[in-house]
Structures are given as C-alpha cells and as structure tokens.
C-alpha cells in the first residue's frame, strides 16, 4: 500500500460498511438498554421510596390521607408556621404499621412504602402517569384506604400492654390485614412534627426496647410449638403422614425422651396421655414434641423446607411493607433441605433448632389452614384515590398449598387444641363465647434462663373462617399464660366489631 494513491483499495469500503453496521447494532443495544430501564423497570424504580424524586416530593407535597377500612382517618397533614406540611396520626397504636413521614428523618412503614403514591409522583394508572407532565400541577397525591381496623389495632396494642410483642390479624379469604400491631409503640406524630422531631427521633433511636422495629413484619422469633402447624402442612401435604398415623416409638419415648442420633427429644404431657400412641389430632392437642419430631423425620428435610417455601419461608414475604424472611433452618447443611443432621430436623419439626419466623409468616401459615389450603396474598391497601378516581386493590391467590380435605384435617386438630380437654390446658383463655375457635399455642425456649416467648396462632369461626390471628409476646412465658388469653380477647373484640 502506498500513501497518496488516488484509487481506493477495493476492500476498504466493504470493511468500513461492516464497521458501520456493527456500530449501528451496538447503538441499537443502547436503545434496548434504555428501553429496559425507561419502560420495563420504570414504574418500579421511579416509585421506590429511595428514588430521589420521591424523597424530594416527600418534603413539600401535601401527602394524601390514610384511612382505615371503615373510613376513619389514620393519618392526615397539617401546616406549620412556614406553610410547610407535616403529618399527624390518629393514634400511637398505628406506629408499627403506618410508620412515620418526617421532613428531617425520612419515612418508614406504610408512609415509606407508598411515598410515591401519597405524594402523587405516581398513580395507580400508567396512562395518567404518562400524560401528567402536560398538566399545570403534575403531582396527584393519592389517598389510601387501608384494610386496617383502627379499633382492633388499638385493642391489640392495649392487650400487649407493657410487653414487647406483635399481633397480626387478617382475613384468610382475602388476605386483608386488619391488625398489624407491634409494641412498644411510639408517637409518630412527634417524629413528624418539625417542632419536636429531632428530640423525639433521637430518643427513639437510643431506646433499648427498639420501638422503631416493626415486629409484626420484621421481628424474627423462635416459634416453638406453633411451628408444628408448618410441619403438619408439610407432612400431610406431602403424604408422608396421614391423620391416622401413629408412631410406636412415641409413647415409649415419653418418659425419658426419644433418642435421635444421641440427642433426646423430650415431652411434658406423659402424665395425661400415658402409653397411648397418639394420632395426628391427638398429638396436636397434646402438643407432642416426639410425635412431631418423628413426623418431621419421616417427611424429610427436603420436603419440610420446600413445603415451608410454599408458605413463604426462605424469602421476604411480598407485602406492602418490607418483611424479614422466615427460615426453617440456617441452611448450608448436607442432610437435605439445608439441615445439618437428623437432630436439627427433629428439633425444627416442633419449632426449635435454627427455625425463625416473623409473626406475619405465622399468620399466613394459619391462613392457609383456615382458607381450605389456599394462601391469599396478604395486603394492607384496599384502594388508592386520586384525581383520576379510585383504583381498588383486588384479593389475589398467592399459593395453592393443600387440598381442602387436608386443610380440614389440620383445622379439626387445631380446634381440638383449643376445645379438647387436654388442649385447653395449653390454650387457656383462647375460647370465646359464641365463637368456635381453632388454634395452637407455642412456648419458644430461647436457651439460657430467660422466660420463653409466648405464642398463639388461631382462627375463627372454625366452620367458615373469617379471621386469623397470630400473637407473639417476647419473654411472655408459656403460650397459655400470655398469648392465648390475648387471642381470646382479640377474637372477642373482632366478633363485636364484625357484629357476629
């Protein structure tokens, strides 16, 4: 090749053409990438609570109101001396679910989850979002009607009293969450009020009782015996165990404990059941650790973990609020399903070992039994209302876990755990006049000498369940002592509210 030659080498034009095509394709890739972020992921990212526009709008827009399912106002906006809006809340009892929206300290809870809707950055209608920039006032703050019932929420917080704990109540037929209480509560209005927010927020952050932790959705607790319902769902659902299954080793092991690979699984009900080999309902009524350990071993680690997965274990539950993940095992073991060995599986089957749950997760487990094996997706919002009208949130089936027959068997066993002569001792106070209640208590040993966590899960009425409840009281003692009576009180309060 010589320089300054007037003619073209024949190949160069072709090669240049190919380079041009390659660059055009590469730029097409850029356009596709832009399309992915600007169309496919646009809604999700631009309405996320940590989006800059959402945060900026949160500081000057008058947020939409939040109401409960009966229309009672739970959160609304006031204006300070400078004409800037700030938030006011109906009651401290809502702090664990609504959270707060503060100009200085950001937002939490439902206020954070729906920051974009409450400030009107995004609406529920994509067409409105597309054309809003052509309007004089682009933001369209949405009012949110929740599924909550303010008076039941109040009753739940009152029932927990000075204890730390959580209550979840939901409608198993729709997934509507009626109560999502966490104690201790805090004064969210003080956090939102610019006059008091610095002082209020500072003392909350330093509080050793951690009032800012929403325990119902993010508190992770050892479940104890309430986890037996998960084991029951896995065992019956997978067919490893039927309602008639008895284990001959069970009565024999009652006195000195059942030996599993050198570890003794112990029980405390030997005096009342004696040498009788318990079936599923009997074991549930007596809260028999040995029967459940044997059922768990027969079901196997893989099946237990995968059936728990169908109930929402292993991942944060998709919900309006951020949730912590529940787990059946710490994972990483080689025994199957992540369990380390047979001992861990046997202990997990009755809710000890590395098993950790959130109160919301236990409410979903109960909801599956109550709703004939179908788990509805839990949700907190009934509707969004903006300029363009009202957008309803419809109930949604999340998982089909059990057949209705299997669910009925577990429900019957849980009813015996509340009404049976032996079960009653574990669930004292859970019964309600004029209402059939099914349930299960739990006493979660924490190791060491501290009081165990007190648990109760249940639903009512048994024939046609309309309400599910899950309660945990931190270091409240045995399930029967603290959580079960709260369950009875709150189911009675629900009965009064529902007018049944």
């Amino acid at each position, binding site marked *: 090749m010589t*320089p300054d030659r007037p003619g073209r080498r024949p190949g160069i034009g072709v090669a240049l053409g190919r380079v041009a095509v390659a660059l055009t394709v590469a730029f097409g890739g850029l356009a596709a990438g832009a399309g992915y972020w600007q169309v496919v992921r646009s809604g999700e990212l631009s309405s996320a609570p940590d989006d800059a526009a959402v945060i900026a709008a949160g500081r000057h827009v008058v947020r939409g109101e939040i109401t409960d399912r009966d229309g009672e106002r739970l959160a609304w906006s006031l204006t300070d001396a400078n004409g800037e809006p700030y938030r006011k809340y109906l009651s401290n009892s809502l702090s664990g679910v609504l959270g707060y929206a503060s100009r200085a300290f950001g937002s939490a809870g439902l206020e954070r989850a729906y920051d974009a809707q409450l400030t009107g950055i995004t609406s529920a209608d994509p067409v409105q979002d597309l054309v809003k920039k052509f309007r004089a006032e682009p933001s369209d703050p949405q009012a949110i009607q929740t599924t909550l019932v303010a008076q039941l929420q109040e009753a739940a917080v009152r029932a927990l009293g000075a204890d730390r704990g959580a209550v979840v109540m939901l409608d198993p037929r729709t997934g509507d969450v009626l109560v999502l209480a966490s104690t201790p509560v805090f004064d969210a209005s003080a956090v939102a009020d610019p006059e008091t927010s610095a002082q209020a927020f500072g003392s909350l952050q330093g509080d050793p009782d951690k009032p800012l932790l929403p325990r119902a959705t993010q508190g992770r607790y050892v479940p104890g015996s309430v986890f037996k319902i998960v084991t029951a769902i896995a065992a019956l659902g997978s067919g490893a165990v039927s309602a008639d299954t008895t284990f001959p080793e069970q009565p024999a092991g009652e006195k000195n404990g059942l030996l599993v690979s050198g570890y003794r699984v112990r029980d405390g009900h030997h005096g009342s059941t004696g040498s009788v080999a318990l079936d599923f309902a009997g074991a549930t009524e007596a809260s028999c650790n040995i029967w459940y350990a044997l059922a768990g071993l027969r079901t196997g680690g893989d099946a237990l973990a995968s059936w728990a997965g169908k109930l929402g274990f292993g991942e944060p539950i998709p919900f309006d609020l951020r949730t912590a993940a529940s787990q059946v095992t710490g994972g990483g073991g080689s025994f199957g399903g992540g369990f380390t060995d047979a001992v861990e599986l046997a202990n997990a089957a009755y809710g000890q070992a590395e098993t950790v749950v959130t109160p919301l997760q236990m409410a979903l487990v109960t909801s599956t039994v109550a709703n004939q094996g179908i788990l509805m997706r839990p949700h907190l919002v009934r509707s969004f209302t903006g300029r363009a009208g009202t957008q309803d949130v419809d109930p949604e089936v999340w998982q089909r876990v059990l057949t209705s027959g299997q669910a009925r068997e577990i429900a019957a066993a849980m009813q015996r755990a509340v009404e049976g002569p032996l079960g009653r001792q574990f669930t004292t106070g859970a019964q309600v006049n004029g209402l059939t209640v099914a349930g299960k208590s739990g006493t979660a040993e924490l190791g060491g000498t501290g009081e165990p966590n007190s648990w109760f899960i249940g639903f009512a009425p048994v024939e046609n369940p309309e309400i599910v409840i899950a309660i945990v009281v931190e270091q409240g003692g045995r399930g029967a002592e603290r959580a079960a009576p709260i369950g009875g009180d709150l189911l009675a309060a629900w009965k009064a509210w529902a007018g049944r």
Partner: protein
Amino acid sequence: MRAPVALFLVALLIRVAVTVGWQFDGLYGQDAFAYYQQSIAIVDRLPRGELPPTDFFWPNGYPALAAMFMGVFGRSPLAAQLASLLTGAALAPLAYWLCRDLFPSAHSRAGIVSGLIIAVAGQPILSSVSIMADMPALFWATLAAWLLVRSSAGHLLAAGAALALSIVVVQRDLGAALLFFAVFLLLLYVVTARASFVVLGLLALLAGGALLYELVPHVRVRVDIWLDPFATASGSGYQVVQALHAFARGGILGTGLGAGLPAIGGAPPIPALHTDFPFAALGEELGLIGIMGILGLYLVVIERGLRIAASAVDDFRAILAAGLSLVIGVQAFIIAAGNLKLIPLTGITLPFISYGGSSLLTNGVVVGLLIALSDRGAEAPRIPSELRGFRRLRDRGAA
C-alpha cells in the same frame, strides 16, 4: 539539518525560554503538585525495592517518566519539568509529520506552524495526554492510522507496543484503555479486512479484563458495582443506582427539559452528573424518545465520518477519518453503555455533551479534521443555489 530535528530543537528552545522567563516550574495547580509528589515517592521508594504508593488517583505514567529524570538530574521541580519539556517538544515534529501527510501541497508551512503551536501549548496538552481520554484518543487514532497505512511487520509491532504502552499509561482510566483498544481493533479490521484479528483482540480483551479484575482492586470494585449496583445502593453503587433511577423517572416521554433531577438539600442526586452521567440526565428529561434521537444523531455523525473515510483520496486520510469517527462513536458507546449498566461504568466523557474543556476542544478538533479530510481539493467551492436566491432577494429589496 532536517526539518523535524530542527523543529524539535526550536520547540525545546521556546519551552525552555518560557520556563526560565516566567520562572515556571510546572507545579501549577493541585494535580501537577500531586504528580510531582508521586514522582518523588517513586524516586524514594524504588531504590529500596518498594512499590510506589497505590493511593495516587491519576495514572502513574507521567510520574514514572518524571522520576526517571529525577534519578539523573536530582529531586527538583526542574527535573520533573525537564521531562515535560522534552516530551512536549517531541510533539512538534510529530505535528509536522501529521500535517505533511494531511496537507501535502502546503506541508512545510502548515507543518511548521502547527509544530510551533504545539511546542508552545505542549504543557497543557501533555498533562491532558496523561489524564483525560479525549486528547490521547485523538492522538492515538492519528498514530494508529499512520502506522497502519505504512503497515509493515515492524510498524505493526510498533503499533502493538504503543497500544500496550498507552494502556499502561492510562492504567487507572479503564474507559480510555478500552476506547484505544476498541478503536485500534476496528481500524486494524478496516485496513486488513480480517475478522480473525478482531476475534483475537476480543479474546485478549477478555483475558486482560480477567487479569485486571484479579490484580487491581479498583477494577474489581467497578466490576462488582456493575454486577449488582443495588447491593451497595447507598455506598459505592450510589451513583450508578441513581443514574438508573433517573432513566426510570424519565420513562418514555421524559420529565421535560429542566424538570428532571430532583434536588435533595440543594444538591442533584448524581454528583458526577455533568461529566460521567449526562446521558442519564438526558434520559430523564427527554425520555426514551429523546435518547433514541440522540443515539440517532451520533449514528449520523459516525456514518458521515465513515463515508468521508470511504471516499478519501488516499489511504492515510481514509484511515484517519475512520479512526476519528470511531473515536466519537466508540467513546459515546462506552460511556452510554456504562450509564445504562450494560458494561461496567468507566469515567470517560460523552462526546459533544459532557462538561469539560479538553473534551469539547478535542471534539471540535475531530470535527475540524473530518471536514478537512472531506475536502478533496479537486472541485472549486460553489455557492449553493439557496444562497443565490437569498442574494437575489436582498438585492431586489435594496433596489
């Protein structure tokens, strides 16, 4: 004496006169001082068998060169300045050669004038050669074109060595390294029309990338951010995540000019918006539609540049025109793809759009060169018919 040697000596003389006359020791500004200190650190440490400090942000190429001079002439600002005097003066004959090939009819005048200009202005050019991608990209495209045209085995070897060297010099600046490499590969393909070179080059790129990922912590951080920026959304991945949010806020139609980038506490959400993320800002305010338009405009510039290359009167001009258009196109691709999380983000500028003196200056030079290359000199310039019409109208109005 031959012209290039004379030019080199004249350039050196001018630069020495400027340095002595103004008592100019080269330590202007924070960056130059940081370079100087890094050179001193290298001189101090290497004899003890230690490595130079790794917390130096800029490339180590220039400090290493200055350290060599310090090793001979002692630890003084003047020794460091000597390095830039000699290398800066060396740019003058290079400019001469370039102009001789570009403007053969007026080579002596144009070459000498531009050589002298570069000799005087060499200091800022040299410091940007070692820092920013734009200037060296221009320089590299020219050099590559030149070497490829005279392609013998020796020249190709020299090209490979120059490529390796420039990547070492810009070791910190991954974007620049990637840009040089990609442009060189594409030019190699244009000249040889052999796809095997491109394949080999891509394999080398992957191997080099993997090696850098293992060895250089800075590279590993960048790649990890790319793989999952949301994992460190409030830390190292902050800017990338904020940029993706900006694209998302823009949606299809955009938020409108000036209506994007919600300020929090008076500051825009993306700190390096004006240099590294203008594409994200455009994506937010103009939307997907605007992004498509901008990408289309880049394609037009590239297409026109490649067309100039295809119809250039000689090989050198053809390859230079191709290289210059590819510098624009590949650079725009690398930074836009980084903004969109298609490849790891590298801090290079978006041609014609990013804030920054040297970048805009270089883009202007590139366009000027392309226009010069498109002038085939054979036809006399003629007045466009529209202009004649306007003139008639004006004349009639005056009458």
